């Protein structure tokens, strides 16, 4: 297991490097000049050339591209993600708050979508073609065909604008209590949960159906075990592998945030920060965030592989 882990981590390194080179060169073809955006408007015309030089040096833009890359990747390795020209602060500090907000939002989404999709998926599989099953089939078909933002807009229209029960968008002000957070969280959480349920319920159902059609289930039934034991102890445990894959994929989005939902609800998370960073031509912030996404994805994939071995002792990692 340890040997496997080391091997996996080592094989991740070239991938991460490749991603970082791709991202870094991409940001270099981005139009716009970050230096002129950082010059304060109050600066006098005669100061500007000097200021330009200073800022160029401060951002390290006076060096050649490979040098810039090496300097940047060296800093990244030490945890220095670069300097955000938009917020005039370290990328680390700029991302901290949106990351917190995104994790809060997606934490609830993860809990709701997992509970609902596992219970609904198991029920649909056990009572195949029943009303419950058909309901979830239709539900996931429609939710897979509807744009995410439309769900959000409809919820805003009904619950915020027509009924006035909840705020239509925005963030709770600093230091507000739990109740306030819940009021602002309800609509985005519902939107994201519905979107993720569309695929996860189907996934769990199919995994369960596969497990239920195995021979050991017939054996378990013929032994006279109660249906509960058959479903939860025999079938569900064997359906865990695909389910773990879904859970891990969800964890990836826990940090990534959804650009669309965050933009509809003006939620100050990772997605909307990336949108603003792009509009502000904040190179380092853009690469740092994309880099972060990629690393989270790779790590969660790695964790998924380790988890497979945990849930299924037959899988040997080597």
């Amino acid at each position, binding site marked *: 297991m340890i040997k496997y882990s080391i091997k996996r981590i080592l094989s991740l390194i*070239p*991938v991460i490097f*490749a*991603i970082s080179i*791709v*991202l870094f060169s*991409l*940001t270099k*073809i*981005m*139009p*716009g000049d970050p230096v002129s955006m950082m010059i304060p408007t109050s600066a006098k015309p005669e100061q500007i050339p000097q200021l330009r030089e200073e800022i160029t040096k401060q951002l390290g833009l006076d060096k050649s591209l490979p040098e810039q890359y090496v300097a940047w990747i060296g800093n990244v390795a030490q945890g220095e993600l670069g300097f955000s020209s938009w917020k005039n602060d370290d990328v680390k500090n700029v991302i901290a708050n949106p990351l917190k907000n995104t994790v809060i939002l997606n934490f609830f989404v993860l809990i709701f979508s997992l509970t609902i999709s596992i219970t609904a998926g198991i029920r649909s599989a056990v009572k195949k073609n029943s009303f419950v099953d058909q309901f979830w089939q239709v539900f996931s*078909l*429609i939710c*897979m*065909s*509807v*744009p*995410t*933002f*439309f769900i959000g*807009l409809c919820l*805003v*229209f009904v619950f*915020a*604008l*027509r009924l006035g029960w909840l705020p*239509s*968008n925005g963030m709770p002000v600093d230091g507000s209590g739990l109740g306030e957070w819940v009021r602002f969280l309800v609509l985005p959480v519902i939107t994201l949960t519905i979107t993720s349920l569309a695929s996860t319920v189907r996934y769990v159902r*199919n995994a369960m*159906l596969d497990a239920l059609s195995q021979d050991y289930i017939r054996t378990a039934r013929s032994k006279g075990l109660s249906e509960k034991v058959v479903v939860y102890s025999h079938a569900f445990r064997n359906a865990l592998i695909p389910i773990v894959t879904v859970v891990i994929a969800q964890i*990836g*989005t826990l940090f*990534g945030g*959804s*650009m*669309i939902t965050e*933009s*509809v609800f003006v939620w100050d998370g990772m*997605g909307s920060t*990336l*949108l603003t960073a*792009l509009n502000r031509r904040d190179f380092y912030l*853009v690469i740092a*965030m*994309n880099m972060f*996404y*990629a690393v989270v*994805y*790779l790590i969660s*994939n790695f964790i998924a592989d380790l988890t497979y071995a945990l849930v299924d002792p037959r899988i040997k990692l080597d």
Partner: protein
Amino acid sequence: MKKESFFAKLGRSFKSLFRSSVTGKKEINVLEEEAIQSPMRTIIKNFFSNTLAKVGLIGFIFILLFSFVGSLFFPMDPLYTEPILKNVQPGRGYLDYGSCDVKAEDIKQLASGATFSVVLTNDGKLCAWGQDQDDVLEIPSNADSGIKEIAVGDRHILALTNSGSIVGWGRANWQQQNLPVSIKGMMRGKVVHVYANEEYSAALTDQGYLYTWGSVTSTKLDIIPDDYQGHIVDADAAAMGMILLMDDNTVRAIGSGGDFKNYPEELENGEVKVVSVKAGKRNAMALDDEGNVYAWGGTSFNLDTVPDFGEKIVQIDSGKNAFFAVGESGKIYGWGEDAESILDIPEDFEAEQIFVDFFQGYAISKSGEMTAWGNEGFILGTDDQGRDVLTRLMHGGKITLLVGVIAVLISSAIGLTVGMIAGFKGGWIDNLLMRIAEIIVSIPFMPLVITLSYMIGSSMDSQSKMYLIMIILGLLSWPGLARLVRAQILIEREKDFVLAARAMGIKEGSIIIRHIMPNVISMVLVDMTLSYAVMMLQEAALSFLGFGVQPPNPSWGNMLNKAQQATTIENYWWQWILPAVCVLIAALSINLIGNALGDAIDPKSNEK
């Protein structure tokens, strides 16, 4: 041939009676039924026996017809906007004068606003029809009867009563419907005429004094030279200015419409006797007592080029950017911008009088008949720039459907090629290709697409940005299919029939194309269909965020872009629900087709 017994015959015909009427199937014998069908035929048969597949197919054909055929019948100029028609609710009947039950000979005056018309009868009563906005169709009780004259702006109405007071209602953002007390107090003489246009109103007194109020400062309509005052006998209000008819039958102009004041010299120096003046948005025209028409105000829409009528003109009137004239013979002439079908003048109609405002025209014949032409309304309303939502939905559908198709073709071509190479070649090529796929997959799709679309396309025009979106979506979506194809090929190449083919000495290339590919292609087809729906949703999301197809070209996604504002969500439902429903119908039909196709190709998956 064996002779059939009578009962066997009877039984057979009885059976066939049922078969043909109930199932429509031809009776086939056992051997025929056992005969092997080609896989393609089985797939098609399975597909069409699925009700959901048929629903999906019908839905998709409907969407295709709506976008591609519909847009042929409703051409669109992407740059056309019409501010006075913005955010109009869905509705028709703008020309529905029949709803008022007024006889043509009773009509004293008929005037139209942006989306409605109002008629004044000879006995001083009002009646209005069209699309109600700002409660403009709710005629107040003090304007019920005894009305002498009416004036209609884009969304407000003024009525002059017999007693000389002005009653106004409708849009009030500049208080244009309400004669200000300050003006009322200093007015010289009794009001004899009222005028109105976009967000302002004016009143003319019997002593020849003109007063304006509403949104008049930006258009400089509040500045009326002193030497004009006291000599004005009539006027016409346009969006940017007013044309005045003086007591010596000459013409003057006020306001900010630049070329408004460049009227022909003979109109100012009294060489000709002007009897009537009319004004469009920036252009104006005049009619003299000999039946000649003069037009000026710049060359836009050729409004200043008066057609050769070949007869004396008895009446003139103007729409927003279109001019109309009635000849002695009763023929109606029109020229200018053909917006909202305002130039679709009825032919062979002997008009005695016409009433044209904005986009609605009405004519009364000598024999008392009445007709109307112009804007009948917007079935699905208009957007925030005054463009017809239905037309934009059709043209937007064209773009959304096309972007999806091209993106899917690109991604499938790459996915299939990469998957095949990786699957067949194996070794380091396989390893390298799969690493590249992993890199693309490991960065979340939406952020990466937006980053790329922004970085590469921020200085592109609308058209090339559209192609860029297709390419980016295509270039980033292939890894899924490539992995699928690779895995499938790895499974297929180990199967017995491949071994058999090899044992028979068939060449490797032939095995790949004739034996392995057919088993892979069906799966690719299903994947293509399903990812088409995904691509459309991605395009919608991208354009919704403003990183996809750029205005003025419509797409279902960018039509939703304005829905980020709460006012749009709350007040203008037709602007965001309709495009979203179009995306939903299209994606749902495609998903239904894709699922059914998957079931048809692999009937075992149906059992799940």
